[in-house]
């Protein structure tokens, strides 16, 4: 008992007691995921060695990709660009479509969250379009724009709408009554309640919608680029497959995964900054 109460007294005096706590390396958090990675690499290696001649082993793939990894931003003639440029082209489409989608989805979500009549009017539309794969919109977009790039952005725009609309509406309609009571007692006019109470109270929901939207948009862009061609990480995958160069496909898969992680983390940071509250994992 004695040492413990001493530490407590020390911390009460404001002396940090973390020095007494030994730093322990989080072995488990490193070893366990490493085992899982190794298992996947082993499976890959087994498949590549015994089942197919098209597939490179992990080591071959690494050697083939060394040039791409070391020089992500090369320009060797038209259409022959480093993977960094391809990634930036895809990111640009996604962010543009996502931003446009957000600009439309948040006001709509806010509106149908506030007005039950608007909800009744719009909800069937949302429910009808939400299960449709965004890629299905591509021919319609191509018919409208006649160009690959705006069409891809349009598909991302559609993709980004639904989760944000639904979550914004949910957030706005479920603002705790306590907060509204405070506003009422303070005689706050309705329009000021919108931006001083309802908007900040529903921000965590809105961010949940944005995270889902961006995640799906990043999934969809690969499929869209495979269909439209042009410069981008999705078309790169299809192009490399046509050249039977599967090593590059593996590289692209890892790059896409890492980029998705970074995008999600970026939104989390933005959310923490905007809401001043800890962010729950999705």
């Amino acid at each position, binding site marked *: 008992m004695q040492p413990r109460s001493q530490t407590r007294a020390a911390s009460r005096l404001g002396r940090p007691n973390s020095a007494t706590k030994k730093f322990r390396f989080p072995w488990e958090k490193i070893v366990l995921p490493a085992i899982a990675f190794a298992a996947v690499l082993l499976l890959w290696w087994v498949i590549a060695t015994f089942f197919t001649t098209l597939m490179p082993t992990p080591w071959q793939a690494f050697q083939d990709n060394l040039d791409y990894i070391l020089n992500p931003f090369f320009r060797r003639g038209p259409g022959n660009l480093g993977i960094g440029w391809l990634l930036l082209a895809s990111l640009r489409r996604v962010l543009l479509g996502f931003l446009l989608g957000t600009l439309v989805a948040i006001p709509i979500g806010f509106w149908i969250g506030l007005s039950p009549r608007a909800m009744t009017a719009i909800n069937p539309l949302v429910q009808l379009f939400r299960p449709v794969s965004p890629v299905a919109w591509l021919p319609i977009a191509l018919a409208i724009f006649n160009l690959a790039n705006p069409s891809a952005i349009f598909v991302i725009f559609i993709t980004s709408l639904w989760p944000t609309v639904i979550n914004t509406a949910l957030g706005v309609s479920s603002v705790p009554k*306590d907060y509204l009571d405070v506003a*009422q007692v*303070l005689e706050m006019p309705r329009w000021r309640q919108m931006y001083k109470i309802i908007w*900040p109270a529903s921000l965590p929901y809105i961010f949940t919608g944005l995270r889902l939207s961006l995640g799906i948009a990043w999934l969809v862009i690969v499929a869209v680029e495979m269909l439209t061609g042009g410069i981008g990480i999705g078309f790169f995958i299809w192009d490399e497959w046509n050249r039977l160069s599967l090593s590059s496909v593996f590289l692209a898969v890892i790059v896409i995964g890492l980029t998705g992680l970074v995008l999600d983390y970026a939104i989390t940071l933005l959310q923490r900054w905007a809401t001043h*509250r800890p962010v729950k994992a999705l």
Partner: protein
Amino acid sequence: MVKANHYPQPADQRQVEFETDFLVIQDLVKAYPSGSGDQTVVLDGINLSVGANEFIAIIGHSGCGKSTLLKIVGGLEQATSGAVFLEGSPIKKPGADRMMVFQQYSLLPWLTVRENVRLAVDEVCDRMSPRDRNDLVEEHLAMVNLTAAAAKYPDELSGGMKQRVGIARALAIRPKMLLMDEPFGALDALTRSRLQRQVLDIWERNPQAVMMITHDVDEAIYMADRIVMMTNGPNANIGEILTVPFDHPRDRAALRESSAYYDLRNHALGFLDSYFEQMS
């Protein structure tokens, strides 16, 4: 202003010294429609008047409609019949002249302590200069000893600190009347008694009309001038009004030495027990 004297004085009003009509509750009935077309009467004919500097505690078993009564006075709920008058004019909607302190604090989690108080001040004192508003906020943060925590967010505070923010927010807009809905109900016993002391200190320095819902007899006797004891719902009414004969400022230890304190306490507990037996 001519004070209106035409309200019938409640029959069970035993109080003389506070018999002013600062807040008058008159024949108040609150009923909710129930399933089969008829109504469930929650409050059945409440009559009460509260003095301008009087601290009133309302006590009763849960479900007796005491929170509903407070919400009607606050304007957050409407009476089915009867009326509430503040300084002669009827209450119909919420207003900053009757500021509430909520049991669950109701702080806005995206604002710091200071910003929470500031939001209320900005909303109500819109004719003040920003500098004066600032001073008002800081003054009330200091009053509840929260100056050091002013830049923190509600999530980072303990329950007692949160309620101190709630109290600072309520007092900062200088309401005519303070409505407190079990303000200490969610706190642990030690924090509760410290916060009771702080609130009573503030009130004793600057008395005003207070209506506090509680289920704690000791809290009611320690803080209030009168204790309104409600009968059980449905059809709840005022069962009895106790006058607490102790002068302010009060000292909890000294109160506990007096036999009058125990008489009062036993009387109130006896009243509550008699209704508790009815329930079971």
